[in-house]
């Protein structure tokens, strides 16, 4: 099987976000970059599928500036076989990234299945997976917890609202967007880390696949940091007064009820 995984490099979860000078994005100086955690589930699933089907390969793709090659290497260290980096600008939006990934996938001789995370933890948009599938022209299933692999189709267990699940069947090739709980991603072994350093990562430019600034649907401006957390309020009085006051505050100040 030719298995593909689309991944995204995101700031580490402990990053203290600062805005850049014109508020069009975040200040990337000093940020430690990691692989978006949902993509780790996607890679783990791909590796397990490969190991059950001898002769299969796992290829990892990522669109972004030059630094994302580092995250592709992390995926190679986990055990992926090949890497493809499509160089896109820092400000590329979901549509442009999806088109770039789809363009790279379409250049591949045969795609049997594509995995990705259900969303990236930086913008939390949950767009690129579905868009990529559309641009490639294959079905997609998102928020997937478990997959039953058949010869020509897949049965996916996906999470839906209200704590319920639904089963979705799709023909292959298809794109699967992984939800947390699908598996336990592995920690790269040292021999694999060493091997990953030597593996070649194929470099593609946007011009190679025909995407450009024209595919950018979103222009970013006026980013703002969330307001600082305010101190808690203690409501005094007897239980009845407290309840009344709480209801009033929730209604009038917080406007949630």
């Amino acid at each position, binding site marked *: 099987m030719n298995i593909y995984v689309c991944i995204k490099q995101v700031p*580490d*979860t*402990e*990053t*203290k976000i600062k805005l850049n000078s014109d508020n069009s994005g975040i200040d990337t100086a*000093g940020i*430690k970059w*990691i692989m978006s955690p949902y993509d780790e589930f996607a890679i783990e699933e791909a590796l397990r599928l490969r190991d059950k089907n001898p002769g299969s390969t796992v290829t990892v793709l990522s669109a972004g500036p030059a630094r994302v090659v580092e995250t592709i290497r992390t995926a190679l260290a986990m055990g992926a076989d090949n890497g493809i980096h499509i160089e896109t600008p820092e400000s590329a939006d979901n549509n442009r990234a999806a088109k770039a990934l789809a363009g790279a996938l379409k250049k591949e001789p045969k795609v049997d299945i594509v995995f990705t995370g259900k969303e990236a933890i930086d913008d939390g948009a949950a767009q690129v997976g579905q868009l990529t599938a559309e641009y490639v022209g294959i079905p997609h299933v998102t928020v997937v917890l478990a997959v039953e692999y058949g010869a020509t189709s897949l049965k996916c267990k996906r999470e839906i609202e209200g704590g319920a699940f639904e089963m979705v069947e799709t023909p292959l090739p298809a794109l699967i967007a992984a939800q947390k709980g699908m598996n*336990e991603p*592995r*920690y*790269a*072994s*040292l*021999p694999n*880390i060493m091997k990953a350093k030597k593996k070649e990562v194929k470099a593609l430019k946007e011009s190679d696949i025909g995407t450009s600034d024209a595919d950018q649907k979103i222009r970013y401006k006026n980013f703002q940091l969330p307001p600082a957390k305010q101190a808690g309020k203690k409501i005094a009085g007897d239980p009845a007064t407290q309840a009344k006051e709480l209801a009033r505050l929730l209604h009038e100040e917080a406007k949630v009820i």
Partner: protein
Amino acid sequence: MTWQTFLFLPVAAAAFGYSGYRFGILFRLMKAHHGKAPMRLDQLPQRITTTVVNVLGQQAVLRKKWVGIMHATIFWGFIVITAGTIEQFLNTIHSSWNLAFVGESAYSALVFVQDFFTFAILFAVAGAFYRRLVLRPEGLGKSKDANIVLIFTAALMVSIFLMNGFHLSSDQPWFQNSLPFSNFVASIITGFGLSPETQHALAVFFKWIHMLLVLGFAVYIPHSKHLHIVAAAPNTFLKHLPREKAMRPINFEDESVTQYGAAKITDLSWKDTLDYYACTECGRCQDVCPAWNTQKPLSPKLIIKDLKENLYKNKTAILAGKTDDVTPVIDNNVTEDVIWACTSCRACEVACPVFIEQTDKIYDIRRNLVMMESRFPAELQTVFKNMEINGTPWAFNNSERANWSEGLSVQTMSQNPEIDVLLWVGCAGSFDDRNKKVLRSFTSLLKKAGIRFAILGNEEQCTGDPARRAGNEYLYQTLAKANIETLNRYNVKKIVTACPHCFNTIKNEYKDFGGSYEVLHHSQFIAQLISEGRLKPSKGLDETVTFHDSCYLGRWNNVYEQPRDVIKSLPSIRMVEMKSNHEQSLCCGAGGGRMFMEETIGKRINIARTEQALETKAGIVASSCPFCMTMMSDGVKTKEMQDKVKVMDIAELIDQATS
């Protein structure tokens, strides 16, 4: 030359030949190991002294009084009796060969001592049997092997008495009165009224019984745990001399190395093998192991025994050079739960009378599990990732590292490199709320004493200790090298830290990577400041304090007294010791990377230790380690004693008593 000569020579040759063949196999097995261990032949005078003191002098064995005396009796007895056995062999080969050339009085003395020890050994063997069969201490366990050895020993002594008894009663040699115990046996034999010829024949008969028992013993030893009589002395000679030790580094630059850590028994080193050979399963290590004593499956004794069994099980494949056929070291007995239960407290190594280094094996096995197979407790993955990304085992951003010092105007090295000493804060002091307070107190002390100091701020990263102890040597080296680069760039000479784990790592383990500094633990530094009069604890504290020894300060670095001196400097304080203290102290449960792992099997170690602290009725449990602080505080809270008992760092005690 008599018939005895012609019978003895082939029998002895066969016995010693077979025994030698078995020892040859043991030696070849040892040599077939490819893990690296240093051949420690430095500091020869010290090695000779320690061997004389501990082997001939039985010092380490005698740390346990009654068992020690029993063992020493058997050991010393065997040495003098072996002189007699050699004489007996010579005498059998040629009737005129004996040790009489040493002179009449010396010979009389020798046979007297032999006679005395023959009796004393019987007495000691009886004591040993009583211990094994009646008292049955838990650490000893059941051992058929041990019973066989004791029966062998008793039979040897009985055969000597019977041989001597018949010899004395029939031949009345000139030294007869030098053997009071044998003479007593002879006097009983005389009462049977046997003819002199019969008595003489029985003397020869029991001599042969004794010789055959000796030869049988020689054949039995290499199969048995009694092998320690051969391996203990070299193991003592080659021991790690100072208490301080560093874990063995791996050279990741060496591309010929493809196996990291121990997957198979042969991945360990020849010295590990000598350790198994030296082990006589006395159980002293198991008796003091915090894991074993809280119902974890790890026993330092059993792991040595199990590794030895694994070695013997794979003997054929190893000797044939078929390493692929050697079965993994993780098996039915040495499970992952065993390997991950160790807190690296080294109580076992300190207790071992033959200086076995149990922890080396455990940590080599962890290295394989982590680096080669990615098999480890799930919670460690987050810890490793945090360390990789943010240089701390906890989920914090490194840019917040100096936040603990807010309002204290502590300078960083980049602001002011003109200092007397660098304060190494450590991750616990930087990010853990309780330990931040300790650092604030220690900083206050440094200021009161007028010390010029600075911190590295966000240039400091975790020393790598939790990664190294958890088997991730690669991650450890990445962090260690980065820290050493920073320390060397600022040309740091002297470092003080309130964390014994950082202290041990920077002091003892950074040397292997180009980092040599004078490193002091804050207990040492504060003790020094007090003795120099730069800190004067004046406010009395009407409290009883008990001090909890940190393993990495105590057993790893031999620092026991300075923290106690610091506490005792407080006016009107009363100090009490817990049941286990100093070298025998019980670990808090957080070492060896256990701080970051769940403890799901058995009783929690910190509770066991807290119970010891509460038994003292002290109002303050003093600690000198951030991990111990966390574990003991949690323990006191679990026991719902936080209103009566406070856990405090020694720096906090001194800070509130000084102005």
